Protein backbone atom coordinates (compact mmCIF):
# COMPACT_ATOMS: atom_id res chain seq x y z
CA UNK A 1 0.00 0.00 0.00
CA UNK A 2 2.58 2.55 -0.98
CA UNK A 3 0.18 4.10 -3.44
CA UNK A 4 -1.93 6.00 -0.92
CA UNK A 5 1.14 7.46 0.75
CA UNK A 6 2.58 8.70 -2.52
CA UNK A 7 -0.80 10.03 -3.55
CA UNK A 8 -1.21 11.68 -0.16
CA UNK A 9 2.14 13.42 -0.34
CA UNK A 10 1.42 14.61 -3.86
CA UNK A 11 -1.92 15.92 -2.67
CA UNK A 12 -0.34 17.80 0.23
CA UNK A 13 2.22 19.27 -2.17
CA UNK A 14 -0.63 20.46 -4.38
CA UNK A 15 -2.40 22.03 -1.40
CA UNK A 16 0.78 23.82 -0.41
CA UNK A 17 1.30 25.09 -3.94
CA UNK A 18 -2.35 26.10 -4.37
CA UNK A 19 -2.02 29.81 -3.46
CA UNK A 20 0.50 30.27 -6.27
CA UNK A 21 -1.84 29.07 -8.98
CA UNK A 22 -5.42 29.60 -7.91
CA UNK A 23 -7.52 32.77 -8.14
CA UNK A 24 -8.92 34.52 -5.08
CA UNK A 25 -12.27 32.81 -4.75
CA UNK A 26 -10.80 29.36 -5.29
CA UNK A 27 -8.56 30.07 -2.31
CA UNK A 28 -11.53 31.19 -0.22
CA UNK A 29 -13.31 27.98 -1.08
CA UNK A 30 -10.23 25.88 -0.46
CA UNK A 31 -9.76 27.41 2.98
CA UNK A 32 -13.35 26.59 3.84
CA UNK A 33 -12.85 23.04 2.56
CA UNK A 34 -9.81 22.63 4.77
CA UNK A 35 -11.74 23.80 7.83
CA UNK A 36 -14.78 21.68 7.08
CA UNK A 37 -12.52 18.71 6.33
CA UNK A 38 -10.96 19.07 9.77
CA UNK A 39 -14.43 19.18 11.30
CA UNK A 40 -15.51 16.00 9.49
CA UNK A 41 -12.27 14.23 10.30
CA UNK A 42 -12.72 14.96 14.01
CA UNK A 43 -16.09 13.23 13.93
CA UNK A 44 -14.55 10.21 12.22
CA UNK A 45 -12.64 9.42 15.42
CA UNK A 46 -15.99 8.79 17.06
CA UNK A 47 -18.01 7.41 14.17
CA UNK A 48 -15.43 5.50 12.21
CA UNK A 49 -13.07 4.26 14.88
CA UNK A 50 -15.31 3.82 17.89
CA UNK A 51 -18.79 3.55 16.32
CA UNK A 52 -20.05 6.35 18.52
CA UNK A 53 -22.60 7.93 16.20
CA UNK A 54 -23.16 11.55 17.16
CA UNK A 55 -26.09 13.72 16.13
CA UNK A 56 -24.63 16.70 17.93
CA UNK A 57 -21.09 17.21 16.72
CA UNK A 58 -22.05 20.74 15.81
CA UNK A 59 -21.69 21.49 19.54
CA UNK A 60 -17.92 21.23 19.13
CA UNK A 61 -17.85 23.40 16.04
CA UNK A 62 -20.10 26.08 17.49
CA UNK A 63 -18.33 26.11 20.83
CA UNK A 64 -14.96 26.55 19.14
CA UNK A 65 -16.30 29.26 16.87
CA UNK A 66 -17.98 31.26 19.64
CA UNK A 67 -14.99 30.88 21.96
CA UNK A 68 -12.52 32.08 19.36
CA UNK A 69 -14.87 34.79 18.12
CA UNK A 70 -15.43 36.09 21.63
CA UNK A 71 -11.73 36.12 22.43
CA UNK A 72 -10.80 37.83 19.17
CA UNK A 73 -13.40 40.52 19.75
CA UNK A 74 -12.87 41.07 23.47
CA UNK A 75 -9.24 40.31 24.26
CA UNK A 76 -5.96 41.24 22.68
CA UNK A 77 -4.68 37.69 22.41
CA UNK A 78 -3.07 36.86 19.08
CA UNK A 79 -4.87 34.53 16.69
CA UNK A 80 -2.88 31.30 17.25
CA UNK A 81 -3.27 31.53 21.03
CA UNK A 82 -6.98 32.16 20.67
CA UNK A 83 -7.36 29.13 18.45
CA UNK A 84 -5.43 26.93 20.88
CA UNK A 85 -7.43 28.18 23.87
CA UNK A 86 -10.74 27.64 22.08
CA UNK A 87 -9.66 24.11 21.18
CA UNK A 88 -8.71 23.31 24.76
CA UNK A 89 -11.89 24.84 26.12
CA UNK A 90 -14.00 22.71 23.79
CA UNK A 91 -12.07 19.61 24.78
CA UNK A 92 -12.48 20.27 28.50
CA UNK A 93 -16.21 20.90 28.20
CA UNK A 94 -16.45 17.75 26.09
CA UNK A 95 -15.19 15.67 29.01
CA UNK A 96 -18.41 16.53 30.83
CA UNK A 97 -20.49 15.98 27.72
CA UNK A 98 -18.79 12.66 27.10
CA UNK A 99 -19.24 11.62 30.72
CA UNK A 100 -23.01 12.06 30.49
CA UNK A 101 -23.47 10.80 26.93
CA UNK A 102 -21.54 7.57 27.53
CA UNK A 103 -24.10 6.58 30.14
CA UNK A 104 -26.05 5.45 27.09
CA UNK A 105 -25.11 3.64 23.92
CA UNK A 106 -26.37 3.46 20.33
CA UNK A 107 -29.16 5.79 19.31
CA UNK A 108 -29.56 7.03 22.88
CA UNK A 109 -25.93 8.14 22.87
CA UNK A 110 -26.54 9.97 19.61
CA UNK A 111 -29.61 11.68 21.01
CA UNK A 112 -27.77 12.76 24.14
CA UNK A 113 -25.13 14.43 22.01
CA UNK A 114 -27.98 16.13 20.16
CA UNK A 115 -29.48 17.25 23.47
CA UNK A 116 -26.22 18.94 24.44
CA UNK A 117 -25.92 20.59 21.05
CA UNK A 118 -29.47 21.91 21.31
CA UNK A 119 -28.93 23.18 24.84
CA UNK A 120 -25.83 24.95 23.65
CA UNK A 121 -27.91 26.40 20.81
CA UNK A 122 -30.42 27.67 23.36
CA UNK A 123 -27.63 29.17 25.46
CA UNK A 124 -26.09 30.87 22.43
CA UNK A 125 -29.50 32.27 21.65
CA UNK A 126 -30.22 33.53 25.13
CA UNK A 127 -26.87 34.62 26.55
CA UNK A 128 -26.91 37.77 24.50
CA UNK A 129 -24.20 39.63 26.40
CA UNK A 130 -21.56 37.06 25.42
CA UNK A 131 -22.88 35.44 22.27
CA UNK A 132 -24.74 38.32 20.66
CA UNK A 133 -27.98 36.31 20.78
CA UNK A 134 -29.67 35.68 17.48
CA UNK A 135 -27.43 38.23 15.75
CA UNK A 136 -24.32 36.36 16.81
CA UNK A 137 -20.83 37.79 16.77
CA UNK A 138 -19.95 39.70 13.64
CA UNK A 139 -16.84 41.45 12.38
CA UNK A 140 -14.48 38.95 14.02
CA UNK A 141 -10.93 40.04 13.12
CA UNK A 142 -7.89 37.95 12.31
CA UNK A 143 -5.65 39.66 14.77
CA UNK A 144 -1.93 39.94 14.15
CA UNK A 145 0.68 38.46 16.42
CA UNK A 146 2.29 37.04 18.35
CA UNK A 147 5.21 39.49 18.22
CA UNK A 148 3.69 41.58 15.49
CA UNK A 149 3.48 38.66 13.10
CA UNK A 150 1.00 39.70 10.41
CA UNK A 151 1.34 36.63 8.22
CA UNK A 152 -1.82 34.98 9.53
CA UNK A 153 -4.00 38.00 8.88
CA UNK A 154 -3.62 37.71 5.13
CA UNK A 155 -5.75 35.39 3.08
CA UNK A 156 -2.87 33.19 2.04
CA UNK A 157 -1.33 33.19 5.50
CA UNK A 158 -4.59 32.15 7.06
CA UNK A 159 -4.96 29.40 4.49
CA UNK A 160 -1.57 27.99 5.45
CA UNK A 161 -2.48 28.25 9.11
CA UNK A 162 -5.69 26.27 8.54
CA UNK A 163 -3.85 23.78 6.35
CA UNK A 164 -1.20 23.30 9.03
CA UNK A 165 -3.95 22.68 11.58
CA UNK A 166 -5.52 20.10 9.30
CA UNK A 167 -2.31 18.27 8.51
CA UNK A 168 -1.17 18.41 12.13
CA UNK A 169 -4.52 17.06 13.33
CA UNK A 170 -4.46 14.38 10.67
CA UNK A 171 -1.03 13.17 11.75
CA UNK A 172 -2.11 13.31 15.37
CA UNK A 173 -5.23 11.26 14.65
CA UNK A 174 -3.24 8.75 12.65
CA UNK A 175 -0.83 8.28 15.56
CA UNK A 176 -3.78 7.97 17.89
CA UNK A 177 -5.60 5.27 15.95
CA UNK A 178 -2.38 3.30 15.49
CA UNK A 179 -1.57 3.43 19.21
CA UNK A 180 -2.65 1.00 21.94
CA UNK A 181 -5.44 3.47 22.67
CA UNK A 182 -6.58 3.20 19.06
CA UNK A 183 -6.53 -0.59 19.26
CA UNK A 184 -8.95 -0.41 22.19
CA UNK A 185 -11.19 1.96 20.21
CA UNK A 186 -11.34 -0.58 17.41
CA UNK A 187 -12.24 -3.20 19.97
CA UNK A 188 -15.10 -1.03 21.20
CA UNK A 189 -16.22 -0.51 17.61
CA UNK A 190 -16.34 -4.21 16.85
CA UNK A 191 -17.63 -5.57 20.15
CA UNK A 192 -17.86 -3.38 23.18
CA UNK A 193 -19.08 -6.06 25.60
CA UNK A 194 -16.10 -8.22 24.71
CA UNK A 195 -13.73 -5.31 25.16
CA UNK A 196 -15.09 -4.76 28.65
CA UNK A 197 -14.73 -8.43 29.48
CA UNK A 198 -11.12 -8.31 28.38
CA UNK A 199 -10.57 -5.85 31.19
CA UNK A 200 -10.76 -2.46 29.48
CA UNK A 201 -12.74 0.28 31.14
CA UNK A 202 -14.35 1.20 27.85
CA UNK A 203 -16.30 4.14 29.24
CA UNK A 204 -13.09 6.02 30.01
CA UNK A 205 -11.82 5.36 26.50
CA UNK A 206 -15.09 6.61 25.06
CA UNK A 207 -15.03 9.76 27.16
CA UNK A 208 -11.44 10.34 26.05
CA UNK A 209 -12.27 9.92 22.38
CA UNK A 210 -15.28 12.23 22.71
CA UNK A 211 -13.04 14.85 24.31
CA UNK A 212 -10.41 14.55 21.57
CA UNK A 213 -12.98 14.57 18.76
CA UNK A 214 -14.71 17.60 20.23
CA UNK A 215 -11.42 19.40 20.75
CA UNK A 216 -10.52 18.93 17.08
CA UNK A 217 -14.07 19.87 16.05
CA UNK A 218 -13.62 22.93 18.24
CA UNK A 219 -10.37 23.68 16.45
CA UNK A 220 -12.27 23.66 13.15
CA UNK A 221 -14.86 26.03 14.60
CA UNK A 222 -12.15 28.23 16.10
CA UNK A 223 -10.69 28.57 12.60
CA UNK A 224 -14.06 29.16 10.98
CA UNK A 225 -14.94 32.22 13.06
CA UNK A 226 -11.94 34.33 11.96
CA UNK A 227 -12.19 32.87 8.45
CA UNK A 228 -15.81 33.89 7.87
CA UNK A 229 -15.69 36.83 10.26
CA UNK A 230 -18.81 35.79 12.15
CA UNK A 231 -20.14 33.22 14.58
CA UNK A 232 -23.84 32.77 15.05
CA UNK A 233 -26.42 30.25 16.12
CA UNK A 234 -26.52 28.74 12.64
CA UNK A 235 -23.13 27.18 13.48
CA UNK A 236 -24.92 25.28 16.26
CA UNK A 237 -27.95 24.29 14.20
CA UNK A 238 -28.72 20.57 14.34
CA UNK A 239 -28.86 20.25 10.57
CA UNK A 240 -25.10 20.83 10.38
CA UNK A 241 -24.60 17.88 12.75
CA UNK A 242 -26.49 15.71 10.30
CA UNK A 243 -24.55 17.12 7.37
CA UNK A 244 -21.15 16.47 8.90
CA UNK A 245 -22.21 12.91 9.66
CA UNK A 246 -23.16 12.56 6.00
CA UNK A 247 -19.73 13.93 5.00
CA UNK A 248 -18.04 11.26 7.12
CA UNK A 249 -20.12 8.44 5.69
CA UNK A 250 -19.95 9.61 2.09
CA UNK A 251 -16.21 10.04 2.36
CA UNK A 252 -15.71 6.67 3.99
CA UNK A 253 -15.74 6.38 7.77
CA UNK A 254 -12.84 4.93 9.68
CA UNK A 255 -10.27 6.24 7.22
CA UNK A 256 -9.59 9.82 8.45
CA UNK A 257 -8.77 10.92 4.92
CA UNK A 258 -12.17 9.85 3.60
CA UNK A 259 -14.18 12.31 5.70
CA UNK A 260 -11.90 15.15 4.56
CA UNK A 261 -12.71 14.22 0.98
CA UNK A 262 -16.35 13.74 1.96
CA UNK A 263 -16.51 17.28 3.32
CA UNK A 264 -14.95 18.65 0.15
CA UNK A 265 -17.33 16.63 -1.96
CA UNK A 266 -20.35 17.75 0.03
CA UNK A 267 -19.49 21.43 -0.02
CA UNK A 268 -18.41 21.56 -3.66
CA UNK A 269 -21.41 19.59 -4.83
CA UNK A 270 -23.77 21.85 -2.91
CA UNK A 271 -22.01 24.95 -4.14
CA UNK A 272 -21.90 23.86 -7.77
CA UNK A 273 -25.37 22.35 -7.95
CA UNK A 274 -27.06 25.28 -6.26
CA UNK A 275 -25.54 27.69 -8.74
CA UNK A 276 -26.94 25.63 -11.62
CA UNK A 277 -30.44 24.91 -10.42
CA UNK A 278 -32.78 25.98 -7.66
CA UNK A 279 -33.87 22.36 -7.31
CA UNK A 280 -30.34 21.39 -6.32
CA UNK A 281 -31.51 19.65 -3.15
CA UNK A 282 -33.35 17.11 -5.29
CA UNK A 283 -30.19 16.06 -7.10
CA UNK A 284 -28.22 16.28 -3.89
CA UNK A 285 -30.57 13.78 -2.27
CA UNK A 286 -30.54 11.46 -5.28
CA UNK A 287 -26.75 11.46 -5.29
CA UNK A 288 -26.66 10.35 -1.66
CA UNK A 289 -29.07 7.54 -2.38
CA UNK A 290 -26.94 6.59 -5.37
CA UNK A 291 -23.87 6.60 -3.16
CA UNK A 292 -25.36 4.14 -0.73
CA UNK A 293 -26.38 1.82 -3.53
CA UNK A 294 -23.30 1.99 -5.71
CA UNK A 295 -20.40 3.13 -3.55
CA UNK A 296 -20.99 1.56 -0.14
CA UNK A 297 -17.47 2.23 1.07
CA UNK A 298 -17.53 5.90 0.29
CA UNK A 299 -15.23 8.07 -1.76
CA UNK A 300 -12.03 6.78 -0.18
CA UNK A 301 -13.24 3.22 -0.66
CA UNK A 302 -13.81 3.98 -4.34
CA UNK A 303 -10.36 5.49 -4.69
CA UNK A 304 -8.43 2.75 -2.91
CA UNK A 305 -10.58 0.12 -4.60
CA UNK A 306 -9.52 1.54 -7.93
CA UNK A 307 -5.87 1.44 -6.92
CA UNK A 308 -6.20 -2.13 -5.67
CA UNK A 309 -7.78 -3.26 -8.90
CA UNK A 310 -4.82 -1.78 -10.75
CA UNK A 311 -2.41 -3.62 -8.44
CA UNK A 312 -4.02 -7.01 -8.71
CA UNK A 313 -2.23 -8.24 -11.85
CA UNK A 314 1.10 -7.55 -10.15
CA UNK A 315 0.14 -9.63 -7.15
CA UNK A 316 -0.69 -12.55 -9.41
CA UNK A 317 2.69 -12.35 -11.08
CA UNK A 318 4.39 -12.47 -7.74
CA UNK A 319 2.44 -15.53 -6.73
CA UNK A 320 3.66 -17.42 -9.77
CA UNK A 321 7.31 -16.79 -8.95
Amino acid at each position, binding site marked *: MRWPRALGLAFVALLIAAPFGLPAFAMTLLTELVILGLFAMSLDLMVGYTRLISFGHVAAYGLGAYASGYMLLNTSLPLPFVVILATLLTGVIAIGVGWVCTLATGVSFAMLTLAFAQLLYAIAFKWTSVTGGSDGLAGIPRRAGPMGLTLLTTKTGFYYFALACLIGSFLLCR*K*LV*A*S*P*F*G*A*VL*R*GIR*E*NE*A*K*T*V*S*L*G*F*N*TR*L*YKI*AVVAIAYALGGLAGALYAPFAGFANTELLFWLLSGQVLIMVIVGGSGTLIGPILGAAFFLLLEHQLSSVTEAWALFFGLIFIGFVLFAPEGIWGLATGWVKRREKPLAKVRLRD
Partner: protein
Amino acid sequence: MTDAGAALIGIAGLTRRYGALVAVDNVSMDVGAGEIRAVIGPNGAGKTTLFHLITGVVKPTAGHVRFAGEDITGLPAHAICQRGLSRTFQLTALFPQMSARENATLAAQARNPRRWLPFGGGNVFTQARRAGGAALELLGLAGVADRPAGLLSHGDQRLLEVAMAVAQEPTVLLLDEPTQGLSVEETAQVVETLSRFLEQSHVTALLVEHDMEVVFRLAHKITVLHRGAVIADGTPEAVKADARVQEAYLGGIE
Protein backbone atom coordinates in the same frame (compact mmCIF):
# COMPACT_ATOMS: atom_id res chain seq x y z
CA MET B 1 -15.52 -28.95 50.16
CA THR B 2 -12.08 -27.44 50.06
CA ASP B 3 -10.73 -25.58 53.03
CA ALA B 4 -11.97 -21.96 52.77
CA GLY B 5 -8.56 -20.55 53.64
CA ALA B 6 -6.88 -22.15 50.64
CA ALA B 7 -9.64 -21.32 48.18
CA LEU B 8 -8.75 -19.01 45.28
CA ILE B 9 -12.39 -18.26 44.57
CA GLY B 10 -14.85 -18.27 47.42
CA ILE B 11 -18.52 -17.88 46.64
CA ALA B 12 -20.93 -17.48 49.54
CA GLY B 13 -24.70 -17.31 49.38
CA LEU B 14 -24.71 -15.82 45.88
CA THR B 15 -28.26 -15.02 44.74
CA ARG B 16 -29.77 -13.25 41.76
CA ARG B 17 -33.46 -12.64 41.35
CA TYR B 18 -35.29 -11.35 38.29
CA GLY B 19 -38.66 -10.40 39.72
CA ALA B 20 -40.20 -13.66 40.94
CA LEU B 21 -37.62 -15.77 39.14
CA VAL B 22 -34.58 -16.83 41.13
CA ALA B 23 -31.89 -17.46 38.53
CA VAL B 24 -29.16 -18.18 41.05
CA ASP B 25 -30.26 -19.33 44.47
CA ASN B 26 -27.93 -19.10 47.46
CA VAL B 27 -24.95 -20.70 45.72
CA SER B 28 -21.79 -21.31 47.75
CA MET B 29 -18.68 -22.97 46.45
CA ASP B 30 -14.89 -22.75 46.70
CA VAL B 31 -12.37 -23.32 43.96
CA GLY B 32 -8.81 -24.04 44.94
CA ALA B 33 -5.72 -22.89 43.06
CA GLY B 34 -4.85 -25.16 40.16
CA GLU B 35 -8.22 -26.86 40.24
CA ILE B 36 -10.35 -27.42 37.17
CA ARG B 37 -13.91 -27.13 38.27
CA ALA B 38 -16.95 -27.70 36.12
CA VAL B 39 -20.36 -26.30 36.82
CA ILE B 40 -22.99 -28.42 35.16
CA GLY B 41 -26.74 -28.50 35.06
CA PRO B 42 -29.60 -28.69 32.63
CA ASN B 43 -30.55 -25.73 30.47
CA GLY B 44 -31.82 -22.86 32.55
CA ALA B 45 -30.10 -24.09 35.70
CA GLY B 46 -28.41 -20.71 36.17
CA LYS B 47 -24.90 -21.62 35.06
CA THR B 48 -24.35 -18.65 32.80
CA THR B 49 -25.91 -16.26 35.29
CA LEU B 50 -23.51 -17.58 37.89
CA PHE B 51 -20.66 -16.74 35.50
CA HIS B 52 -22.08 -13.28 34.91
CA LEU B 53 -22.24 -12.74 38.67
CA ILE B 54 -18.66 -13.84 39.21
CA THR B 55 -17.32 -11.71 36.37
CA GLY B 56 -19.35 -8.64 37.26
CA VAL B 57 -21.53 -8.51 34.14
CA VAL B 58 -24.60 -8.93 36.38
CA LYS B 59 -24.81 -7.56 39.91
CA PRO B 60 -25.93 -10.06 42.59
CA THR B 61 -29.08 -9.57 44.64
CA ALA B 62 -27.31 -11.07 47.64
CA GLY B 63 -24.13 -12.91 48.54
CA HIS B 64 -20.41 -12.43 47.99
CA VAL B 65 -17.63 -13.40 45.64
CA ARG B 66 -14.10 -13.42 47.00
CA PHE B 67 -11.07 -13.75 44.84
CA ALA B 68 -7.63 -14.39 46.35
CA GLY B 69 -8.91 -13.08 49.65
CA GLU B 70 -10.43 -9.88 48.21
CA ASP B 71 -14.16 -9.20 48.04
CA ILE B 72 -14.88 -8.49 44.37
CA THR B 73 -18.67 -8.50 44.62
CA GLY B 74 -20.26 -5.78 42.53
CA LEU B 75 -17.06 -4.51 40.95
CA PRO B 76 -17.41 -3.55 37.28
CA ALA B 77 -16.61 -6.30 34.77
CA HIS B 78 -13.41 -4.70 33.53
CA ALA B 79 -12.06 -4.31 37.06
CA ILE B 80 -12.69 -7.97 37.88
CA CYS B 81 -10.96 -9.02 34.68
CA GLN B 82 -8.00 -6.83 35.58
CA ARG B 83 -7.56 -8.90 38.78
CA GLY B 84 -6.85 -11.99 36.73
CA LEU B 85 -10.18 -13.61 35.92
CA SER B 86 -10.52 -14.01 32.16
CA ARG B 87 -13.61 -15.48 30.61
CA THR B 88 -15.08 -16.73 27.38
CA PHE B 89 -18.68 -16.35 26.33
CA GLN B 90 -21.31 -18.94 25.55
CA LEU B 91 -22.18 -17.24 22.29
CA THR B 92 -18.96 -16.53 20.48
CA ALA B 93 -17.83 -12.99 21.18
CA LEU B 94 -14.95 -11.89 19.00
CA PHE B 95 -13.83 -8.89 17.00
CA PRO B 96 -14.99 -10.35 13.70
CA GLN B 97 -13.20 -7.98 11.34
CA MET B 98 -9.84 -8.25 13.06
CA SER B 99 -7.50 -11.16 12.43
CA ALA B 100 -7.18 -13.91 15.01
CA ARG B 101 -3.79 -12.51 15.92
CA GLU B 102 -5.18 -9.01 16.45
CA ASN B 103 -7.89 -10.48 18.66
CA ALA B 104 -5.36 -12.23 20.84
CA THR B 105 -3.07 -9.20 20.85
CA LEU B 106 -5.83 -6.90 22.04
CA ALA B 107 -6.67 -9.39 24.78
CA ALA B 108 -3.05 -9.47 25.92
CA GLN B 109 -2.82 -5.69 25.71
CA ALA B 110 -5.48 -5.46 28.43
CA ARG B 111 -2.93 -6.78 30.94
CA ASN B 112 -0.34 -4.14 30.11
CA PRO B 113 -0.29 -1.22 32.56
CA ARG B 114 0.31 1.09 29.59
CA ARG B 115 -2.55 -0.33 27.58
CA TRP B 116 -4.13 3.14 27.17
CA LEU B 117 -1.10 4.82 25.57
CA PRO B 118 -2.48 7.28 22.99
CA PHE B 119 0.65 7.37 20.83
CA GLY B 120 3.51 5.12 19.79
CA GLY B 121 3.13 2.00 21.90
CA GLY B 122 5.75 -0.13 20.19
CA ASN B 123 6.62 -1.95 23.44
CA VAL B 124 3.02 -2.45 24.41
CA PHE B 125 2.30 -4.01 21.04
CA THR B 126 5.45 -6.14 21.03
CA GLN B 127 4.66 -7.64 24.41
CA ALA B 128 1.02 -8.14 23.60
CA ARG B 129 1.81 -9.71 20.26
CA ARG B 130 4.21 -12.10 21.96
CA ALA B 131 1.68 -13.16 24.59
CA GLY B 132 -1.09 -13.35 22.01
CA GLY B 133 1.04 -15.35 19.62
CA ALA B 134 1.99 -17.77 22.37
CA ALA B 135 -1.66 -18.27 23.28
CA LEU B 136 -2.57 -18.94 19.66
CA GLU B 137 0.24 -21.44 19.49
CA LEU B 138 -0.94 -23.19 22.66
CA LEU B 139 -4.41 -23.61 21.26
CA GLY B 140 -3.24 -24.69 17.84
CA LEU B 141 -4.34 -21.58 15.99
CA ALA B 142 -0.97 -20.44 14.66
CA GLY B 143 -1.91 -21.60 11.17
CA VAL B 144 -4.99 -19.39 10.93
CA ALA B 145 -3.63 -16.43 12.90
CA ASP B 146 -3.87 -13.94 10.07
CA ARG B 147 -7.41 -14.70 8.96
CA PRO B 148 -10.24 -12.41 10.04
CA ALA B 149 -11.81 -13.92 13.14
CA GLY B 150 -15.25 -13.76 11.57
CA LEU B 151 -14.15 -16.12 8.80
CA LEU B 152 -12.71 -18.88 11.04
CA SER B 153 -14.51 -22.19 11.48
CA HIS B 154 -16.82 -22.46 14.48
CA GLY B 155 -14.41 -24.69 16.34
CA ASP B 156 -11.53 -22.32 15.73
CA GLN B 157 -13.66 -19.39 16.84
CA ARG B 158 -14.33 -21.13 20.15
CA LEU B 159 -10.64 -21.89 20.53
CA LEU B 160 -9.77 -18.32 19.65
CA GLU B 161 -11.98 -17.19 22.50
CA VAL B 162 -10.06 -19.44 24.83
CA ALA B 163 -6.79 -18.23 23.35
CA MET B 164 -7.80 -14.64 24.04
CA ALA B 165 -8.45 -15.49 27.66
CA VAL B 166 -5.20 -17.41 27.83
CA ALA B 167 -3.30 -14.53 26.27
CA GLN B 168 -4.14 -12.54 29.36
CA GLU B 169 -2.15 -15.02 31.43
CA PRO B 170 -5.03 -15.21 33.89
CA THR B 171 -5.04 -16.64 37.40
CA VAL B 172 -8.45 -18.10 36.73
CA LEU B 173 -9.87 -19.07 33.37
CA LEU B 174 -13.64 -19.08 33.11
CA LEU B 175 -14.96 -21.05 30.15
CA ASP B 176 -18.65 -20.72 29.34
CA GLU B 177 -19.73 -23.77 27.33
CA PRO B 178 -16.68 -23.97 25.06
CA THR B 179 -18.34 -26.56 22.79
CA GLN B 180 -21.71 -24.85 22.51
CA GLY B 181 -23.13 -25.11 19.01
CA LEU B 182 -20.32 -27.27 17.60
CA SER B 183 -20.65 -30.45 15.56
CA VAL B 184 -19.51 -33.77 17.01
CA GLU B 185 -16.18 -33.63 15.15
CA GLU B 186 -15.54 -30.04 16.10
CA THR B 187 -16.39 -30.80 19.73
CA ALA B 188 -13.91 -33.66 19.79
CA GLN B 189 -11.21 -31.44 18.34
CA VAL B 190 -11.85 -28.57 20.75
CA VAL B 191 -11.97 -30.89 23.78
CA GLU B 192 -8.75 -32.53 22.66
CA THR B 193 -6.97 -29.21 22.37
CA LEU B 194 -8.41 -27.87 25.61
CA SER B 195 -7.46 -30.88 27.67
CA ARG B 196 -3.93 -30.82 26.33
CA PHE B 197 -3.69 -27.13 27.13
CA LEU B 198 -5.15 -27.45 30.64
CA GLU B 199 -2.77 -30.26 31.53
CA GLN B 200 0.23 -28.28 30.38
CA SER B 201 -0.63 -24.93 31.89
CA HIS B 202 -1.77 -25.76 35.46
CA VAL B 203 -4.13 -22.80 35.32
CA THR B 204 -7.16 -22.68 37.62
CA ALA B 205 -10.25 -23.10 35.49
CA LEU B 206 -13.96 -22.80 36.03
CA LEU B 207 -15.97 -24.43 33.31
CA VAL B 208 -19.67 -24.24 32.56
CA GLU B 209 -20.91 -27.04 30.37
CA HIS B 210 -24.00 -29.11 29.82
CA ASP B 211 -22.29 -31.78 27.74
CA MET B 212 -21.42 -34.48 30.34
CA GLU B 213 -18.74 -36.13 28.24
CA VAL B 214 -16.85 -32.89 27.89
CA VAL B 215 -17.04 -32.31 31.60
CA PHE B 216 -15.80 -35.75 32.58
CA ARG B 217 -12.94 -35.39 30.19
CA LEU B 218 -11.74 -32.04 31.54
CA ALA B 219 -12.80 -31.44 35.13
CA HIS B 220 -11.22 -32.45 38.44
CA LYS B 221 -14.33 -31.56 40.40
CA ILE B 222 -17.91 -30.93 39.47
CA THR B 223 -20.63 -28.74 40.96
CA VAL B 224 -24.18 -29.47 39.82
CA LEU B 225 -26.72 -26.67 39.62
CA HIS B 226 -30.43 -27.22 39.36
CA ARG B 227 -32.97 -24.37 39.25
CA GLY B 228 -30.28 -22.01 40.46
CA ALA B 229 -29.23 -24.06 43.49
CA VAL B 230 -26.33 -26.46 44.12
CA ILE B 231 -27.56 -30.03 44.39
CA ALA B 232 -24.27 -31.91 44.27
CA ASP B 233 -20.57 -31.22 44.54
CA GLY B 234 -17.64 -33.60 44.20
CA THR B 235 -15.42 -35.70 41.97
CA PRO B 236 -16.75 -36.76 38.57
CA GLU B 237 -17.28 -40.30 39.78
CA ALA B 238 -19.19 -39.23 42.85
CA VAL B 239 -21.39 -36.86 40.89
CA LYS B 240 -22.06 -39.46 38.22
CA ALA B 241 -23.35 -41.81 40.88
CA ASP B 242 -25.48 -39.20 42.63
CA ALA B 243 -29.18 -40.05 42.39
CA ARG B 244 -30.34 -36.45 42.64
CA VAL B 245 -28.18 -35.49 39.70
CA GLN B 246 -29.61 -38.20 37.50
CA GLU B 247 -33.09 -37.19 38.54
CA ALA B 248 -32.43 -33.54 37.84
CA TYR B 249 -30.99 -34.25 34.44
CA LEU B 250 -33.86 -36.49 33.46
CA GLY B 251 -36.31 -34.03 35.02
CA GLY B 252 -34.68 -31.19 33.14
CA ILE B 253 -35.29 -32.82 29.82
CA GLU B 254 -38.97 -33.54 30.26
